[in-house]
């Protein structure tokens, strides 16, 4: 029984750590550019296909392939921002949200045209042995994912809070005009936000397909939404919150599947989310609004 619980927790941790990784990139763009980037999940999908092309079509070794994937996604992220979001700087935030949905459709249908609808199997490029702890085994990939997520989370937190570029980002997120009065290059800062966010999406994409070993054009949609939920659960704009939110989401999901009902698991997960937000309206780690009357 105990083994079973631990195994289910580990299952949750495995999916959760991937949600967390995706949520990091999500929250980054979300917190700084103040927009829900619905295309984030699809950048993960592009990352997955990019890795596939690099490894299978271009026959690159793993490390250059990973680098190429990350660069591709970062460039793509910046490109999307320039073409589709930048012209809408002065528009209401919801307008950008809709454009992001358009971009998401675009990326999905483009990859459908290029790679077809049939799922493509893909063998994991990460080969780390599992660890046995008593009667339970923790898969190597779960450990790698957790490690990568934690490193990204710490790096991102330090970057945003401790570096000059990081505080420039936070300034831009609050008031672009005032930020430019500080001498901050607003456009470049936002580009950098998207580059980092998309870089993280690429990392997530790589780990995602190493975990699930199958590619299809719609693979980013569900994780994208889950990551959005995780980011809000953890508190919008809070980097550690995104990580905690993601992992928690994975664990709640797996526990409710295991001990309540697989059929109602989604309802339970979302129910927990609603309850958490009712108790703590700004998410687990979110700051309460600083608006002073």
């Amino acid at each position, binding site marked *: 029984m105990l083994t079973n619980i631990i195994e289910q927790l580990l299952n949750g941790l495995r999916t959760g750590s991937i949600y967390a990784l995706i949520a990091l990139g999500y929250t980054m763009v979300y917190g700084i550019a103040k927009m829900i980037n619905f295309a984030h999940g699809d950048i993960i999908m592009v990352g997955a296909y990019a890795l596939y092309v690099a490894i299978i079509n271009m026959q690159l070794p793993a490390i250059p392939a990973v680098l190429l994937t990350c660069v591709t996604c970062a460039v793509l992220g910046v490109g999307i921002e320039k073409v589709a979001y930048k012209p809408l700087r002065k528009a209401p935030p919801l307008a950008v949200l809709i454009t992001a949905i358009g971009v998401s459709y675009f990326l999905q249908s483009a990859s459908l045209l290029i790679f077809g609808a049939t799922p493509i199997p893909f063998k994991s490029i990460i080969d780390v042995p599992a660890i046995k702890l008593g009667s339970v085994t923790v898969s190597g990939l779960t450990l790698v994912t957790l490690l990568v997520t934690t490193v990204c989370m710490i790096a991102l937190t330090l970057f945003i809070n401790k570096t*000059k570029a990081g*505080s*420039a980002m*936070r*300034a831009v997120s*609050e*008031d672009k*005009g*005032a*930020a*430019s*009065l*500080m*001498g*901050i*290059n*607003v*456009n470049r800062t936002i580009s950098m936000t998207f580059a980092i966010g998309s870089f993280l999406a690429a990392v997530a994409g790589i780990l995602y397909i190493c975990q699930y070993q199958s590619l299809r054009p719609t693979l980013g949609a569900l994780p994208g939404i889950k990551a959005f939920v995780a980011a809000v659960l953890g508190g919008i704009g809070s980097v550690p919150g995104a990580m905690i939110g993601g992992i928690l989401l994975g664990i709640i999901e797996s526990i409710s599947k295991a001990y309540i009902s697989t059929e109602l698991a989604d309802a339970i997960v979302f129910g927990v989310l609603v309850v958490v937000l009712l108790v703590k309206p700004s998410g687990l780690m979110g*700051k309460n609004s*600083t*608006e*002073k009357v």
Partner: protein
Amino acid sequence: MAMLKVTDLKVYYGVIQAIKGISFEVNQGEVIALIGANGAGKTTILHTVTGLIPPKTGKIEFEGKDITKLQGHKIVSLGMAHVPEGRRVFASLTVLENLKLGAYTRKDKEEINASLEMVYKRFPRLEERKSQLAGTLSGGEQQMLAMGRALMSKPRILLMDEPSMGLSPIYVNEIFDIIKQVSAEGTTVLLVEQNAKKALDIADRAYVLETGNIALEGKASDLMNNESVKKAYLGE
């Protein structure tokens, strides 16, 4: 040569013309006051100079360089600082982070710290509250922060939009003293003020703005004695 030279500036909000062809100059070391009624266009001029709003026509030169089409952050890094109307502090950042952002364009760590000390000395309240979130400061405290933040960049020219707004009388005097000091240290100042009397007191020259046009200009002391100025802006 004028440090800041604005020629035939016209600015629109949509179809509304806010600035209707204005020219003025600010010379090195001067304190220039810009006064005028509500909605005359003072804020609009400052915003246009620092690149927050694009002008329709006209030319803006800073130290001989055409900055009309330059992006805001480039203009600022040329040595210009702007205390904006409504303070616009970064509400979810701490006081200290706000101040450090003021020095964003500077690299010299030592000197930045020196500037920080200087700002703290001028506004002790800011040092007391250095880790408070700027959004929770009182109105007057925020005004001090906006001012301190601008000083952090060690500007060669300082643009100020109603810096005394919301400050207690004691601090209003303080602020004007600080402006005098800053000017004495060699910084050029372009000051927009509703408190025309105090502004004209410390200014060398002044421009009087009326609905998008310059109605009067001249030495501050002359304007102070100008009957129409007295009547319209000094409340006498």
